[in-house]
Every structure is written in structure tokens, then in C-alpha cells.
């Protein structure tokens, strides 16, 4: 009986329909006090819908919610907050131009006797919460000037300020570096240690096994099963999630490196505030190999890729592509030499979201025959090509004329991959190619990268996911504070060595 009293949240038979989609189908869930309960599922499986039901953003068509044993009706976020349920959304709900204090107090303001905002009092409260849960943050900092990891802490403080006892974290690690994620896990433990209960929504298997007390797997709106990490493993969870066996480890043959395709000499790039971001980088990428660039986000990888693709002018050094000096070349010239680019931020730099899938597929070729003639676009030719690529690259879209912004993340990435790889590719630059994607899509993208390599392209893979770098690369360059600290042979190194280099610990010190 004691166990029953421990259930802080129970969801029974929740069903939510959208036009044409059964997003949640008869879902049951129990959350115990002080536990981390992971909800695992692919993108579009219905995890976020379920959480929006719990948070009052959606109304369920059927089903009941019990909090602390009492049946509750949650019609709005306010009801959820009053019932002690708080949510950290995948896209942060913070006003960028407000300070931490202003964001925390918004909607639950503390006023002075003359009805002005009492920011000092709230700031004190934030400091007290920071101290209690080791969530260090400066109450007077502007949100837009804080790193994502800290912004996330602000979101958590917002919930604690509202005295939430049940915290829903929606894909909290999607935007974090591995270090920030570890930091978050510590915070989560410190929260559960003080009696808070956490629902942890994710599609990352390793994280589930590492941190969750219970796991509930959802597929196509249904609960597939609930288990605990000690009774399962990665491949079992993956197949529960996807509904078929999944290759978690990419199969790849031995690389056959050919001639040098890309040569970078002593490259220096500064950012918009004139801070040096790439500080004398030199590297070669050969045909038929994957060179992985490992490093924590923000160590100059973004600027390096921008310089290589012609999006940013370097301030020093030299870039040679297939024997041609492209240091000052524009992006079109670099593209025409056979460079494919999968950008880091697919929604900002990879696609024009309000355009159709078909138009996105010709962004790099629209000006050529047969897609345009005499300066006029040939829509029939574009559509014909688009339909072919949608088939070839398995893009799940209702039609070629669908707006790219309405596709799922995985399918948006497939549109970019289709556009970039449907030509003859000499150099493929893939930056964070699987960020935020589900297991199925990751498997697909990895396969495509290996295929490009085997077809003789030079592949430069930039990723902050260490596992991805370890699995795919033939050689690994580790970037730290704008410099390549070392280039390692993937066969003779290990996670630990690369991880330490990423953290800026030099090799000699590792040995010592």
C-alpha cells in the first residue's frame, strides 16, 4: 500500500486525436515521487502531445489525470501550474531581451507596496533556489547573452519559483553539449533528491539507461511497454521504439584514401565581434575518407565551416579545393566545384522553410538548365526532379509541393541531403548532421555519409556528438579554442583520449 501513496501523477486512458492523426491512443502512465521517468519515442510518436495534454495546452479527447491521487482537470497552463506541474519546453519559453529575474517573475510577479515590480525580492528568491539546487545563474543577466545550458537552468528555476513538484523536461539534452548534458543530469538528481519528480522526454537511448528510474516507450501514440534500465539495453529499447531492429553501430568498410581534395593552411577566421574563432587551422581531407572534427560546440567549428563553404571571408591562411585556391571564392563557385554542405542549423541555413519541398531541392541548381530557361523557372522540370528525389531519398512528405517547414526534423534533413548529394560530390561538409533527429533518421544519415565516402568523396564531419565521431570517422581532428589540438587515427584511439582532448587536456598531461 505504501507504494500506492508514492504515485504523484497518474494518467489513465489518454486519447488525443488531431485531424487525420491519432496522436495519443489510450495511454497509461504512473510517476512515483522522487523518480526520473523517461518517456522514449521517435519524433512524432506522441510524446510531446502527451506532455502538452498534461500541461493544459491540449485537451484530451478521452482519459483522466490524477495528481497526488486526486482527479484533476487541466484546461490551461495556469491549472497545471496550480496543480504543481511545470514544463521545460523543447524550445525555451524565455523572452530573450528580458533579464533572468524578469523571465522568472513573468506571470507571477511580486509587487512593492506602490505596485511596482519588486525585482530585488525575486532576485533574492532566485539566488536562494540557485543555492539549494546548485543551479548557478546570475539573476540580472540578459537571457540572450546566456549560453543555452544556462538558459535551461533559468527554465528550471522558473518552475521551482512556482513551486512545481512535477517537472516535465521535453527533450532537454537536444540543444546541449555533452558537458552541459552531464551538468543537467546532476541537477536532475539534485531535484529528485529533494522530492521532486521528473518526466524526462527523450529519444536518446544512452541517456535513458544512464539516468532514468523507469522507462516508458511510446510508438505511434501507443505505450509499447514500461521497464527499468537494469532490465533492458540499447538495442532492445531501440527496436521497441522504432518497431523493427535498428543498426545502432554503423557498418563501414575500410577506407581507401585517395588524393587530397581539401587542403587548409593556417586558416584564421574572426566572428562578427572581431574575436578570433579559428586560430591557425591546417588540415587535409583526402578522397574516400571521413575526417571527423570533434569538439565541444563553440570552439570555432561553426566559423571553420563557414569559411570552407564561402559564407565567411577568412582573415588569414589559404583554402585549396581540388588544386584551386578558393580562399576568397563565393559559395556558388565552391558549390560548383563539387562541394556539398549540410549546415549545422538546418532550419536557418539549410532550408527556406516557407518554400515547397521542390523549390528547396533546387536551391543550388535552380539557375541552370533544365530548371530555368532564359531566367524563367521551369516548374514542370523542377517538380519532376523533386518527385524522383523524394523517392530516391525516402523523404516522407505528402507531396513535392508541401511547405518544407511543415515536415518533421528528420524529413527536413533528408530534403537537404537529397539536394546536396544528388549531384557528383567531391567534398561533403556535414555539420552536426544528426542533431535533434530520431534513431531511424540518424541511421539513414550515417548510411548516406558512408556511401558518399565509398563513392570517393572527401567527407568532413563536424559533430559535438562524440559517439558519432567515433563511429564514422577514419581520422579524428580535435578542435579546442579555435585550434586543432591533434589529429588521431580513429582505429588507434578511444573515447577517453578524444574526450580529454576536447576538454583541452593536452596529450602529454594525459600521460602524466
Amino acid at each position, binding site marked *: 500500500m505504501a507504494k500506492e501513496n508514492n504515485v504523484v501523477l497518474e494518467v489513465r486512458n489518454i486519447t488525443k486525436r488531431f485531424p487525420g492523426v491519432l496522436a495519443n491512443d489510450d495511454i497509461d502512465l504512473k510517476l512515483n515521487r522522487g523518480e526520473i521517468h523517461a518517456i522514449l519515442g521517435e519524433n512524432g510518436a506522441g510524446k510531446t502531445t502527451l506532455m*502538452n495534454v498534461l*500541461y493544459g*495546452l*491540449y*485537451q484530451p479527447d478521452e482519459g483522466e489525470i490524477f495528481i497526488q491521487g486526486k482527479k484533476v482537470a487541466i484546461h*490551461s*497552463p*495556469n491549472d497545471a*501550474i496550480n496543480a504543481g506541474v511545470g*514544463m521545460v*519546453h523543447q524550445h*525555451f*519559453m*524565455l*523572452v*530573450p*531581451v*528580458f533579464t533572468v529575474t*524578469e*523571465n522568472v*517573475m*513573468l*506571470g*507571477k*510577479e511580486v*509587487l512593492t507596496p506602490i*505596485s*511596482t*515590480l519588486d525585482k530585488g525580492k525575486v532576485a533574492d528568491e532566485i539566488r536562494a533556489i540557485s543555492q539549494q539546487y546548485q543551479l548557478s545563474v546570475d539573476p540580472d543577466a540578459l537571457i540572450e547573452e546566456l549560453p543555452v545550458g544556462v538558459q535551461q537552468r533559468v527554465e528550471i528555476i*522558473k518552475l521551482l519559483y512556482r513551486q512545481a513538484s512535477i517537472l516535465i523536461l521535453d527533450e532537454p539534452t537536444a540543444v546541449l553539449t555533452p558537458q552541459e548534458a552531464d551538468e543537467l543530469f546532476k541537477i536532475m538528481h539534485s531535484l529528485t533528491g529533494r522530492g521532486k519528480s521528473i518526466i524526462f522526454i527523450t529519444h536518446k537511448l544512452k541517456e535513458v539507461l544512464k539516468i532514468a528510474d523507469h522507462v516508458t516507450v511510446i510508438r505511434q501514440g501507443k505505450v509499447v511497454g514500461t521497464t527499468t534500465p537494469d532490465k533492458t539495453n540499447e538495442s532492445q529499447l531501440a527496436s521497441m521504439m522504432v518497431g523493427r531492429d535498428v543498426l545502432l553501430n554503423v557498418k563501414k568498410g575500410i577506407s581507401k584514401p585517395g588524393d587530397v581534395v581539401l587542403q587548409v593552411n593556417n586558416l584564421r577566421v574572426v566572428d562578427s565581434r572581431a574575436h578570433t574563432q579559428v586560430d591557425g587551422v591546417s588540415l587535409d581531407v583526402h578522397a574516400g575518407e571521413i575526417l571527423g572534427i570533434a569538439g565541444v560546440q563553440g570552439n570555432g567549428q561553426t566559423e571553420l565551416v563557414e569559411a570552407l563553404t564561402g559564407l565567411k571571408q577568412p582573415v588569414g591562411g589559404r583554402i585549396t579545393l581540388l588544386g584551386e585556391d578558393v580562399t576568397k571564392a563565393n559559395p556558388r563557385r565552391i558549390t560548383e566545384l563539387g562541394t556539398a554542405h549540410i549546415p549545422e542549423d538546418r532550419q536557418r541555413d539549410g532550408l527556406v522553410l516557407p518554400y515547397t519541398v521542390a523549390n528547396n531541392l533546387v536551391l543550388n541548381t535552380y539557375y541552370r538548365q533544365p530548371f530555368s530557361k532564359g531566367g524563367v523557372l521551369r516548374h514542370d522540370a523542377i517538380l519532376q526532379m523533386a518527385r524522383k528525389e523524394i523517392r530516391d531519398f525516402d523523404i516522407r512528405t505528402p507531396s513535392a509541393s508541401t511547405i518544407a517547414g511543415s515536415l518533421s526534423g528528420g524529413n527536413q534533413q533528408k530534403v537537404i541531403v537529397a539536394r546536396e548529394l544528388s549531384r557528383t560530390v567531391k567534398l561533403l561538409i556535414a555539420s552536426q548532421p544528426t542533431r535533434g533527429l530520431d534513431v531511424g533518421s540518424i541511421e539513414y544519415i550515417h548510411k548516406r555519409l558512408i556511401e558518399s565516402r565509398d563513392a570517393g568523396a572527401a567527407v568532413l564531419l563536424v559533430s559535438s556528438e562524440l559517439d558519432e565521431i567515433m563511429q564514422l570517422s577514419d581520422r579524428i581532428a580535435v578542435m579546442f579554442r579555435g585550434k586543432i589540438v591533434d589529429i588521431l587515427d580513429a582505429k588507434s584511439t578511444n573515447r577517453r583520449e578524444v574526450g580529454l582532448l576536447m576538454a583541452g587536456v593536452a596529450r602529454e598531461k594525459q600521460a602524466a
Partner: protein
Amino acid sequence: MNASTRIVEFLKKRRVLTILSAIIVIAIAWSYNNNPVVTQAVLASALRHSTPIVLGALCGLICERSGIVNIGIEGQMLIAAFTSFLVSAFVGNLLLAVLVGILTGMIAGLLLAFMSVTLKVDQIIGGTVINILALGITGFFYQQGLAGGGKLPIIPLGPLADIPLLGRVLFTNPPITYSALILVFLVHFMLFHTRWGLRTRSVGEHPRAADTVGINVFLTRYINVIIAGGIGGLAGAFLSIESVGSFERAMTNGRGFVALAVMIFGKWTPLGAWGAGLLFGLTSAIQTQIQFGGITIPHQFVGMLPYIITIVVLAGFVGRSRPPAAEGVPYEKEG
């Protein structure tokens, strides 16, 4: 940090503003020394020129801070000028005339809110509808030769009015000019130091974030657009029953759009809009003075001066300004 270093910090951060203000103050002092009567007249006229512009800019910024673009200020001012004038002509009570002007502006605001929040019409089109509607209605019902009930009187503020220069310029004015000055500081205080202000700004920057903490985005926008309409209406009443004392067709003469520009130059802040509005008022007053001075430049070119100087000074010195992030985007609730 003690007070004096704080002041130094502030002056360093606002260097352009400081230099600009210093130049203007020195110019005024020099001019007052040479010709006190003209200087006083020009400055008083500058304040009067700036009043409808500043009120219009406050109307615009209260809307835009909550995420609604209001290009209908011109129309709100015009139709309120008309109804105020009608009340003053037929009833003869000027206070009632002002109140009716404010109410008219609020109704026009309600219409804009209904179109842009509830119907989710493109806000540029919504504002244009109000402008055209106001022009049409006032043009249709306007009768030539209708005599108004007079102008709002000048109220000298006791001993304050006796201060040299400042007394005549700042403290010897009719009521709407005073209320514009008060509103600038009141709106500033409300926007940055009260719950209403915090919520308004959050709705204009990130409405979904506001929604998730239980703030009613639709209601906030309605309230703001209606309040703003009232201030736009006050600007209209200024034109017909404080400044001119009668109504003419299209008498707003683009002031609503100038107000919009002044709001942007003032970086969507009441104090900034006030400064930019005063600059526009000053150049307008100087321009009038030049025309009286019998200079042989065609008056059309002299008439352009206020616009050109305002744009050059503000575009050149103010730097980049950033509108509220969610401006112009109708809010859609999830689910």
C-alpha cells in the same frame, strides 16, 4: 558604484545623445542671448508641433510593444479630431469634446484589435482600412462653414509660468499639451516598472512564453490597442480643438505616419519617442520661421526641412533599433 561614476557611465553609454543634447542646449542659449523673443516663440511652437506627433508615437508604441503594428494612427487621429470638433460645434462643451475624441480613438482601436487579434487580418491591411475609413467618413459628413465651439484655453501654471524662457515654453500651455508631457513619463513608468508593462512587453516579444505562464495574449493585446487608440484620439482632439479650433478635410496631414517614424527613431521607448518628436517639432518651428523670414528658396523645399533633418540626425546618430520580436504576427494558440 557611487552616483558620480554612475552618471559618467551613463554619459559614456549614451555619448551620441549627450553630444546632441549639448549642441541643442548651447544653440538655444546662444539664440536666446541674441534674440529672446524669437527664440521663445520658436521653442513654444516646437513643443506645440511635437505634441500630436508624440501622442501618436505613444499610441503606436503601446500597440507595438504588445505585438500589434498600428499604421492606422493617422486614421485614428483624423476621425477623433472630427468627432471632437462635432461635439464642440453642436454641444459646445470642450471637455466633453476631448472625452468623445478619446472614446472615438478607443473605438477605432477596438476595430483594429478585432481585425488583427480575432480575425488575424494582416495588420498592415487592418491599419490601412482604418486610415481609408477615417478619410471617407470624415470627408462624407464634413460640412463646410460649420463653426466650432472654440479652442481649449491656455492655462499658465502659476509661479512656474514666470520662469524666464522655460516658463513661457513649458508652463504656459493648453491642457492636451500638458497631458502629452505627463503621458510620456507615465507610459515610460508603466511600461518598465509595472506588471502591466512586463506582461505587455513579453506578449510583444514572445507571446508563447507569456501564454505558458498563464498570461492571456489575446486580452493583453486588446487592452493595449484600445488604450493606445485613446491616446491617438487625444492627439486628434489636439488638432481640432486645441491647435486649430476647427476641422478641415484630412487635417492630420501625415502626422500619424510621422509619429510612426518618431516611434521607430525613439527605439520603441516613450522617452526616445519624446526626444525624436521634440526634434521634429523644433525643425518644424524653425522651418516656419525661415519661411516668414523671407528667404528666396521655394517654400516647398523649406517645408521638407523638418523631415530631412529628422531623418538625417536620427538615422545617422541613433543607430540600429530593434522592434519587438513578435510584432505583426497574429498569435495562434496550440491545439
